[in-house]
């Protein structure tokens, strides 16, 4: 039917043709990612990519996930050949950060690195080698495989959660897990979607459509944000909230729900701790150890209205015939015979909510009292999902915002069913990649042995405490450091080595409710043993060698290059960046190793419940130049390290725990005597292991994935974040977390085994945060009139795409910050002009985007630009002091203990204060 003819027409027809296609995706931290693409190759070059569009319908009546992709995905192939690409090992030939390079061979590069590592080990121990926990690449190659040598010899590895801070401390404090992650299609089941502290039109481009489609299906969409952001435009209501006052809004909605008798009481009794009795004299829970000598500290009490007696609370959510009181005042006789008054936590909550009448809250949060009432009634009567972003965790009192939101859901029975809940993120299910380094030998027999061992351990622990769950046991193992990720809470690293101590002790920038200095809290926390073990030990070793693999810490770090270049860099003898592009961190490194890009190696992105698939990305073309996959880099480093160690007779070292580590067979150990030395071999092994572990169908192999591209997970496996989903993984239903709690009455992994709103930790009582409360954000950066909010950009995954020339063409070609039109006019700043943004710390120059969509007093600076895209490389992180909330040093309390990726102090970058003027 080619009716038109001519050279011009044939040229276009020819332009579209290709020789072959492979499966591809972007194994990066664009979360939830997993968009299956076809990569089109012609004459040995990747010419383009396009979504496969072959997702199947999961649940009848729910839209499919097709086509899934974004503008970055649509132009990834262009970055493969971009000018920011690194193609050869480079050694710094000038000062750090000067951008003067000497091209060297792999052998020279690895020799330099290995020698620097061995020097550091000899001088200060292996903990003086630091691997920055980084998510930027987020793929199996950079996350799991690149750690081969470093993890094995016991280097310090900073906790990725604090590096990036995508933590939800308030969710964690409430649920003992921070990571409910409904599958994206579950949004379609909601009757009310609250887009809160989130901008999915930017941050979830492939899946935003479920918001629009849920609305077309009858849901109402409400956006709660300071600015009229791009996600707000398709909602039914936009609720402009004052920056940092979200907790006041949520608590006021709770107050309305309580006042108007809309509380779902049976849900509250069953799922939460609000029926647990609290002593009036000391504000602590009434514990078994209060009532009997030698009693347990983790048995709590209820007042049963049937029997009219105080009874022990069950350790699961199954209340049986109990009818716990939510209100009232009762008397309990302590072990020493003294009688004390006790009242359910709910009674305390009522008192707390007295401060949040809609009229009072309106003053705090700027939302009209009637709007608060209407919203509260909507939540109380509808299946509600809070589409929370990762903004709250980055706010100083974000934990309080999140706890208040969770309370709103608790009072209205809004979790543990489709279309309800609150959103965070989770990775997991692809268990083969976690088990690899524990295997004594390659092959699936070894995997079966390990699985059997794990199962026996779980069974034994369940026999010991039949009220526990697999999740609780795995979490306990993780607290005990028994799981393979051996991470150090970064806060201690920054405190000791990166100069943050001064800022964190700056009383003006911290929380006014702090009764002591930050130092005093640190000392007490360490003294009490709350951060025992590797956390404090490793943090004290002097950093000498630093690896940043696929990440860009000089872009990401709160507090900015300023802090790191000033305080950390001079201590480092060797900085190694492994990347396929030249980042700001690369520019400040001593050696840059060229990694293969996403279409040049077999790989997988993070696997997430949001999409629920294992998505394969293949080697469409050979790595360009001299670049290599991370697995090949790891193996080459292993060989070189052994060679150089032998040369100086250093074949055995001790790690931080005093265990012996041998350096003479590193390559053999890591590659399983060469059996898995090939990229395809190791990837196939991980796939087969995952199949043995039951998370993907038994017949899944590298070959089957090369054919089909992706496969849906069939089970959760044993990773903590997957088990935290706490719902059956069904082949034909959307996933909604916490159904094991509502349907099977399984306990939450918290101290009280219930969703915990009352936290009687001594520090929480000291802070007045035993219950959710609204607190104003401290004046971080000084007393200035503007507050910076920021967030995930539309146009880049972290900083990866921000220098892509095609992507730059879709924006202004340079960074901009968004300022309200009235504010700009008052300062004589016109759209497109430069403005100077400054505070007590630094001054940054950026182009102004002037818009009425931004709230007066707000400055929106989306993340992701490279510092080297700003004048003098001064980006916005430099005006952030990078505070952490002191209360997050609390530990030694049920679930408030450190385990990798979970409870720990995380850095703050929201609501930093600045002033703005027109730049000359």
């Amino acid at each position, binding site marked *: 039917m080619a*009716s038109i003819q*001519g*050279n011009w027409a044939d040229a*276009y027809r020819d*332009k*579209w*043709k290709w020789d072959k296609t492979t499966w591809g995706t972007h194994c990066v931290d664009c979360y939830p990612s997993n968009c299956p693409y*076809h990569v089109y190759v012609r004459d040995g070059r990747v010419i383009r990519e*396009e*979504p*496969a569009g*072959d997702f199947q*319908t999961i649940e009848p009546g729910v*839209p*499919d996930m*097709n*086509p899934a*992709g974004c*503008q970055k995905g*649509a*132009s990834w192939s*262009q970055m493969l050949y971009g*000018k*920011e690409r690194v193609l050869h090992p480079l050694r710094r030939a*000038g000062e750090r950060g000067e*951008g*003067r390079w000497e091209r060297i061979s792999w052998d020279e590069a690895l020799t330099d690195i290995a020698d620097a590592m061995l020097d550091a080990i000899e001088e200060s121990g292996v903990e003086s080698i630091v691997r920055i926990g980084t998510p930027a690449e987020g793929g199996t190659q950079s996350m799991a495989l690149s750690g081969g040598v470093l993890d094995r010899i016991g280097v310090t590895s900073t906790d990725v959660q604090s590096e990036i801070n995508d933590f939800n401390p308030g969710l964690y404090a409430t649920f003992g897990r921070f990571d409910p992650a409904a599958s994206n299609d579950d949004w379609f089941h909601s009757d009310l979607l609250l887009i809160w502290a989130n901008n999915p*039109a930017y941050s979830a481009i*492939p899946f*935003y*459509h479920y918001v*629009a*489609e849920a609305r*077309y299906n*009858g849901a109402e969409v409400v*956006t709660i944000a300071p600015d*009229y952001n791009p996600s707000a435009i398709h909602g039914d*209501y*936009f609720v*402009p909230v004052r920056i940092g006052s979200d907790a006041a809004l949520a608590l006021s909605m709770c107050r309305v729900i309580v006042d108007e008798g809309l509380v779902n009481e049976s849900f509250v009794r069953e799922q939460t701790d609000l029926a647990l009795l609290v002593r009036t004299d000391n504000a602590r829970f009434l514990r078994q150890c209060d009532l009997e000598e030698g009693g347990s500290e983790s048995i709590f009490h209820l007042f049963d209205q049937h029997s009219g007696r105080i009874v022990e609370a069950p350790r699961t959510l199954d209340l049986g015939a109990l009818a716990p009181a939510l209100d009232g005042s009762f008397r309990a006789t302590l072990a020493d015979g003294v009688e004390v008054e006790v009242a359910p936590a709910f009674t305390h909550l009522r008192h707390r909510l007295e401060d949040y009448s809609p009229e009072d809250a309106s003053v705090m949060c700027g939302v*009209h009292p009637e*709007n608060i009432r209407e919203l509260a009634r909507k939540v109380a009567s509808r299946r509600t999902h809070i589409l929370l972003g990762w903004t709250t965790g980055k706010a100083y009192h974000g934990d309080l915002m999140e706890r208040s939101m969770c309370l709103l859901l608790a009072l209205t029975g809004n979790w543990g069913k489709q279309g309800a809940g609150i959103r965070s993120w989770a990775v997991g299910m692809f268990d083969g990649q976690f088990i690899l380094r524990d295997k004594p030998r390659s092959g699936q027999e070894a995997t079966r042995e390990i699985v059997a061992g794990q199962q026996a351990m779980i069974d034994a622990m369940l026999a010991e405490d039949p009220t526990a769950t697999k999740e609780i046991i795995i979490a306990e193992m993780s607290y005990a450091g028994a799981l393979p990720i051996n991470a150090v809470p970064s806060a201690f690293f920054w405190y000791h080595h990166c100069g943050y101590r001064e800022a964190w002790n700056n009383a003006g920038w911290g929380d006014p409710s702090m009764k002591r200095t930050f130092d005093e809290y640190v000392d007490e926390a360490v003294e009490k043993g709350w951060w025992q073990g590797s956390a404090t030990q490793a943090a004290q070793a002097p950093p000498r060698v630093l690896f940043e693999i696929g990440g860009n810490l000089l872009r990401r770090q709160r507090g900015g290059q300023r802090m790191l270049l000033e305080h950390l860099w001079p201590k480092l003898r060797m900085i190694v960046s492994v990347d396929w592009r030249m980042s700001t961190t690369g*520019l400040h490194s001593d050696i840059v190793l060229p990694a293969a890009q996403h279409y040049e190696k077999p790989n997988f992105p993070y696997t997430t419940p949001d999409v629920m698939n294992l998505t394969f990305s293949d080697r469409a073309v050979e790595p360009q130049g001299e670049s290599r996959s991370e697995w090949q880099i790891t193996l080459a480093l292993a060989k070189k390290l052994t060679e150089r160690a032998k040369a100086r007779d250093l074949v055995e070292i001790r790690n931080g725990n005093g265990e012996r580590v041998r350096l003479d067979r590193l390559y053999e150990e890591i590659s399983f005597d060469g059996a898995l030395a090939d990229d395809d071999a190791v990837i196939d092994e991980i796939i087969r292991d995952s199949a043995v572990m039951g998370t993907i169908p038994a017949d899944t192999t590298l070959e089957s994935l090369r054919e089909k591209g992706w496969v849906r997970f069939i089970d959760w496996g044993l990773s903590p974040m997957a088990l935290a989903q706490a719902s059956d993984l069904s082949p034909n239903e959307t996933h909604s977390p916490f159904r094991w709690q509502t349907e099977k009455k399984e306990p939450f992994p918290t101290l009280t085994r219930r969703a915990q709103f009352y936290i009687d930790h001594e520090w929480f009582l000291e802070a007045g945060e035993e219950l959710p409360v609204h607190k104003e954000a401290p004046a971080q950066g000084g007393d200035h009139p503007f507050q910076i909010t920021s967030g995930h950009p*539309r146009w880049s995954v972290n900083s990866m795409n921000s220098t892509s020339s*095609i992507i730059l*063409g*879709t*924006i*202004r070609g*340079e960074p901009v910050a968004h300022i309200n039109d*009235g504010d700009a006019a008052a300062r004589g700043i016109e759209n497109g002009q430069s403005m100077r943004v400054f505070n007590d710390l630094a001054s940054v120059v950026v182009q102004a*985007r002037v818009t*009425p*969509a*931004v709230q*007066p007093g707000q400055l929106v600076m989306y993340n992701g630009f490279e510092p*080297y895209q*700003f*004048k*003098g490389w001064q980006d916005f992180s430099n005006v952030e002091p990078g505070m952490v909330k002191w209360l997050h040093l609390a530990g030694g309390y049920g679930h408030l203990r450190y385990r990798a990726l979970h409870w720990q102090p995380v850095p703050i970058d929201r609501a930093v204060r600045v002033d703005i003027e027109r730049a000359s």
Partner: protein
Amino acid sequence: MGTITESKRQLAWVFDLNKCIGCQTCSVACKVLWPQQDPGTEQMWWMTVNTKPGRGTPRDWEAMGGGYDAHGKLVLGKVPTPEEIGGGWDFNYDEVLRGGRGSDVHLHKTSGAKSWGMNWDEDEGAGEFPNAYYFYLPRLCNHCTRPACVEACPKDAIFKREEDGLVLRDEDRCEGAQRCSSACPYKKIYFNSARGVSQHCIGCFPRIEQRVAPACVRQCPGRAAFIGFLDDEDSAVAKLVKKWKVALPLHPESGTEPNVYYVPPLSPAPLREDGSFDESGDRIPPSYLESLFGPGVHAVLKSLRAELDKKRRGLDSEVLDTLILYRWKDALGHLDRDPAEIVWN
């Protein structure tokens, strides 16, 4: 002067502005696919998405004229200048990354327009906080039924393809007179100075010939884009445009009878002076929408609200079910073939 022929069938695009999130995936997909990075094409974006209200791309294109007057007479307007089109930037990568000058230099544009780009006024909009308003408007060649460009071309190089109504340019015949560009009221025609020809969206005709949807439609992650024949009753496009009449052309007053249609944007309730919701108020001024989509827009918005109300009361709505797009392939009409299946020989 070229002559407009009638096509047997007409392909049409529909963009649902209540789903479009301005992600530019459509624009990027098009730019990567077709030769829009070759010398002479730096500024070309056959597909663009702009924030409205806004000056758009080319800057202030709506004031540049073209199309037909009330008497059906061709009107020649302005040819946009490179500065008005904007973009076309290259950057000093080498200097920054390998130049040895450290932080003395930062990455910046070394060529192209100084004051504009294809998406310069992204997310700005109009109104006053908290009642600011904006939405996204994806635009490509409208493959008009009365294409002014065809009539204006002195070389008769532009034609409507018989079998599907695509407006295509015989680039071998085009001599770069740019009369098409001055006649096009949508200013979706670019000039390739390296080749001395004009170029515009080719409707992905090589894909369509293989029963594959255009890249801009097939890659749209917002599931906001639909394509199909207007006379194919089973296609979502025909249902939205012809049956339920909820999709309207942009600037119908241009007289060119465009074949790209838009489901007009709803918007959140505005806030009253005291901050309470004004449920019956309009955030986007209806007059503004009328200036874009004609007077028919009011009825469409009313019917969309009525359908939403039905859904909220638990009743069925065929219109909304079509827009929900339970099966994504239903957006693609007869063009639902997976391109990766094709084996070229």
